[in-house]
C-alpha cells in the first residue's frame, strides 16, 4: 500500500522559494498569480500491515522525520 504524503509550509511562514517561482511565472507572462507556496510530495510504500497500523506508522514517520512541524504541516492518503 502506498502512502502519498504532502508536506506544506504553515501559513505565516515566509516562503522565499515560492516567491521566486511567483516572480518567474509573472516573467513568463502568467497573470493573476496571487501567491505561490512550495511544498514536498513523498511516496512511501508500506507492506505487511493493516490500514490502521499503516496510518499510525506513516503519521509517526511524518512527525519524526519527514516534516518539521515547527514550520510544516503534513497530510497523507493511503492507496492500494
Amino acid at each position: 500500500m502506498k502512502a502519498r504524503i504532502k508536506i506544506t509550509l504553515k501559513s505565516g511562514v515566509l516562503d522565499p522559494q515560492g516567491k521566486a517561482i511567483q516572480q518567474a511565472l509573472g516573467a513568463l507572462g502568467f497573470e493573476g498569480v496571487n501567491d505561490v507556496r512550495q511544498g514536498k510530495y513523498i511516496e512511501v510504500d508500506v507492506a505487511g500491515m493493516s490500514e490502521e497500523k499503516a496510518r499510525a506508522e506513516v503519521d509517526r514517520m511524518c512527525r519524526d522525520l519527514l516534516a518539521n512541524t515547527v514550520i510544516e504541516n503534513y497530510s497523507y492518503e493511503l492507496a492500494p
Partner: protein
Amino acid sequence: MLRASVIVFPGSNCDRDVKTALERITGFPVKMVWHGDASVPASDLIVLPGGFSYGDYLRCGAMAAHSPIMRDVIAKAKAGTPVLGICNGFQILCESGLLPGVLMRNASLRFICRDVYLKVETDKTFFTNTYRAGEVIRVPIAHAEGNYFADAETLDRLEGEGQVVFRYCDKDGSVSAETSPNGAQRNIAGIADPTGRILGMMPHPERLYEDPLGGTDGRRIFESALVSAVAAMA
C-alpha cells in the same frame, strides 16, 4: 585530561578545521567520531561541525539528526556534556530537538559566504564567557539555510531566558533588518539551551581564530570552552 570529540557525518567539511582550532587553542586531544558509531568516547566537549551532511537531503540536518551517533550525543548533551554546533551543526541541533526552532532557506535564496558582524548578547554560556556582553565581533558565515525561524512565543522565551547568544549587526553593533544577511528572525545568529552548555551558531569561529586567517574574533569561543571545561573539573 580534557578531551573533545568532533562528529563526522557524510558531507561534513569543516570537521578538520574545527579539530585544528580545538587542538591549537585548547590543547584538547580531539577524536573524530564517525556518524555510524553507536557512542561518543568520554568527552568534555562535543562538536557538530559545518558542512552538508547527507547532501542536505530532505531538510538541512534532518538526516544527520537521526543518524546512529546522535542518540548518544543527545543523551550526553542532556546529561550535561557541552555541545557546540556550527553552521550545519546548528541545523542538526535544531532538527534533533536539542535547540528550538529551525534554519530555513536564506530570504535572498542565495548562498552567502562573507564576514559578518555579530553582537555577543551574553557572556554567561560555556562558549562565550571570555567575550564581553554587548561586544561586536567579526566572524564569517557560509550558508544557504541560516534563516532562523521559531514562533513568537519561542522567540520571546529565548530572549527572556538569555538564550539568544549572537545577533547579526553592523560594525557599530546596531541591530536591524538591514544587518541580517539571511532574514533570520530577530537577527538571531546563535542560541543556547537554558544551561548555556549547548550552543548552535551559523557563523564559523573556526575560520577566524588566528592572524594568518585574517582575524582572531572566533578564537574566544574555544578559549571560553577551555576556561569552562577547566572550571568544571575543579
